[in-house]
């Protein structure tokens, strides 16, 4: 066992009006502060085995990051115990404590010590870190002159070399360019193979299903399911799109997905789709406020997170008579039929809805819509099947 969590409770007391100065305190000497209790975690228990890659999944505000911060000794739990074997390093954000005024060496040592390395140990690993980050030529440059990509690479390299027994990672995977992402992927597998215990908090189902041995779904501060990552992913999507789930807690919630499903040729709802069979997706969107010039977009990703294709639909541009303006509460069903030339595999469909309030005030809201499997296809070279026009002729 590497991590043992027993019955953790955490409630945040949020003052309705926060007094932040002595002046205010003096101005309202008898003003009582009213609090609102936010029960973030309500009795979470969890075991992570040694060498396991464990995912914690949940919607925004479900308590998953709070749990991670309690494990990392950043927040104090109200009740319950956590026991951890070996050294733990949290990665809530890459490059914590990086100082832009300092060169790479000083930052690495500072960051390394924060991640739990000894000072000499951090110095000893400096070369390995610079090599891993591929930043050898820039070691004397101050960090403020680094590009953001270089900074991230450096931070990631420190994390890899910090060599903790238990790593807590909070959605830091989605950084860097494609080749760096690949390196991250390789690194996670390598860490896993080296027997490290990794706890990953994310709402990227692709990542959970790719890396994790087991996962936990957390909802409203309670663990609702623990086990197979595929099942966790399925339940997570269900949770997001079940009828009474309301909207995803995004700061600007102007639309919600009422329903979304996949249909076969006969109009029957299907979970997965056969090869070559057209992909029909129906999406019912409800406006939560008046939406002008609605545009709905779709993006398809494969299980590796590769963006396979994308397309948009806008009633205004299509001119098909569908309403361009949705009043509050009005619903719109978007019908998509897509020729299916995809290779077999697991696909994730995301959808976004944009609203145009005033010129220039455009907001896009993204939903994880569906995931489905394309089955029964003879092997294809690449992601797609294409039908090229080809011919040949003999040359003299």
């Amino acid at each position, binding site marked *: *066992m590497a991590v*043992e969590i027993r019955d953790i409770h955490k409630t*945040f007391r949020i003052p309705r009006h926060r*007094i*932040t*100065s*002595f*002046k205010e*305190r003096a101005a309202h000497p008898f003003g009582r502060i009213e609090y609102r209790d936010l029960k973030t975690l309500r009795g979470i228990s969890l075991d992570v085995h*040694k*060498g396991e890659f464990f995912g914690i999944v949940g919607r925004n505000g479900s308590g998953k990051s709070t749990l991670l*911060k*309690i*494990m*990392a*000794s*950043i*927040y*104090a*739990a109200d009740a319950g*115990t*956590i*026991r*951890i*074997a*070996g*050294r*733990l390093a*949290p990665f*809530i*954000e890459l490059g*914590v*404590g990086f*100082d832009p*005024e*300092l060169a790479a060496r*000083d930052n690495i*040592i*500072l960051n390394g*010590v*924060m*991640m*739990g390395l*000894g*000072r000499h140990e951090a110095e000893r690993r400096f070369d*390995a870190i610079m*090599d*891993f980050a591929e930043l050898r030529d820039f070691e004397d440059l101050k960090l403020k002159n680094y590009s953001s990509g270089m900074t991230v690479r450096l931070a990631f390299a420190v994390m*890899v*070399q910090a*060599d903790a*027994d238990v790593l807590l990672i909070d959605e830091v995977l989605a950084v860097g360019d494609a080749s760096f992402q690949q390196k991250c992927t*390789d*690194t996670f*597998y*390598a*860490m896993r*193979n*080296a*027997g490290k215990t990794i706890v990953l908090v994310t709402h990227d189902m692709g990542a959970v299903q790719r890396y994790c041995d087991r996962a936990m779904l957390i909802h409203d501060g309670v663990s609702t399911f623990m086990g197979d990552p595929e099942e966790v992913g399925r339940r997570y999507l269900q949770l997001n799109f079940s009828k009474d789930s309301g909207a995803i807690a995004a700061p600007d919630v102007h639309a919600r997905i009422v329903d979304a499903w996949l249909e076969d040729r006969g109009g029957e709802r299907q979970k997965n789709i056969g090869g070559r069979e057209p992909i029909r997706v129906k999406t019912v969107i409800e406006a939560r406020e008046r939406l002008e010039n609605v545009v709905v977009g779709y993006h398809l990703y494969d299980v590796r997170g590769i963006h396979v294709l994308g397309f948009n639909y806008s009633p205004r541009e299509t001119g098909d008579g569908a309403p361009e303006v949705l009043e509050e509460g009005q619903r719109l069903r978007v019908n998509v039929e897509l020729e299916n030339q995809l290779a077999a595999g697991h696909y994730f469909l995301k959808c976004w809805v944009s609203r145009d309030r005033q010129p220039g005030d455009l907001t896009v809201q993204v939903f994880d819509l569906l995931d489905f499997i394309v089955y029964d296809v003879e092997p294809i070279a690449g992601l797609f099947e294409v039908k090229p026009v080809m011919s040949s002729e003999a040359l003299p």
Partner: protein
Amino acid sequence: MKTTTAAGLEDADPPRPVTRAERPPAVADELREVKGPSAFGGGRRRFFELLLLMAMTDFRKTFFGTVLGYAWSLLRPLLTFAVLLVVFTRIVRIGSQIPNYPMFLLFNIVFFGFFQEGTTTATTAVVARESIVRKTQFPRLVIPLAAVLTGLLNLGTNLVAVLAFFFFFGVGPYWTWLLFPVLLGLMLILTAAVATLLSALYVRRRDVAIIWGVLSLALFYGSAVLFPIDLVPPGLLRDVMLINPLVLIMIQAHQWIIDPGAQSAVAVAGGWVNLIPAALVFVGVCLWSIRFFNREAPRVAEEL
């Protein structure tokens, strides 16, 4: 050293699939309870390493950032010194009756400046290091203490310049200079205590910085920095001043460092017994500080 040290990551070989059976044996198997964030947590060694590292990086940043770093760091105390010297020897003229008044003034400004600098930078330090506090395991007490330690390093470099002035103006050396560490130790403890207290208070009440700005200025004028205590007539005012431990430290510094003919703190107070109030204030501030910080530390990340 463990054999598992991410060695596979360092060389350029592509990752080789490893089966579960091949995985190296467990290293640290014993489960230990996580106690949550605190003022000290995380082991003594890590505490001191972080403290030293943070203080040194801040110190070096002010120092080696510019070619004239050292000159810059001296500029502030020297300018203050120059202005006050003109005021107190040409206009108010209290300085002319006091032996070695310029050196008395210079030393006091530099020495008291450590208290002011340490407490002022520490006040906002926890909030300024917000990202560290909210995103990583970190013994909270390191933050205000690192600010004080940076101040101590600055004091060290400033004192080198002060020493040069001493030789130039023919002050000392006296054997009592060897007792300076006693004064420095007391000053350091008091500065650290006040700094720690303020840094925790500032998290809750942001006007602490403004209030402390005024208070520390009041202390500067009221702590026998600009004038020897003899100029304060015996009576209520002097008795009140003698409750302040800073005043006693400055009085003793006058005798030990500048002028062996000056009165000692015990003599000024009129006996050891009269030092008790200041000693109680000293201990009280230290205890209050550590208790308050300890109580606040676990919640600091949430309050930010």
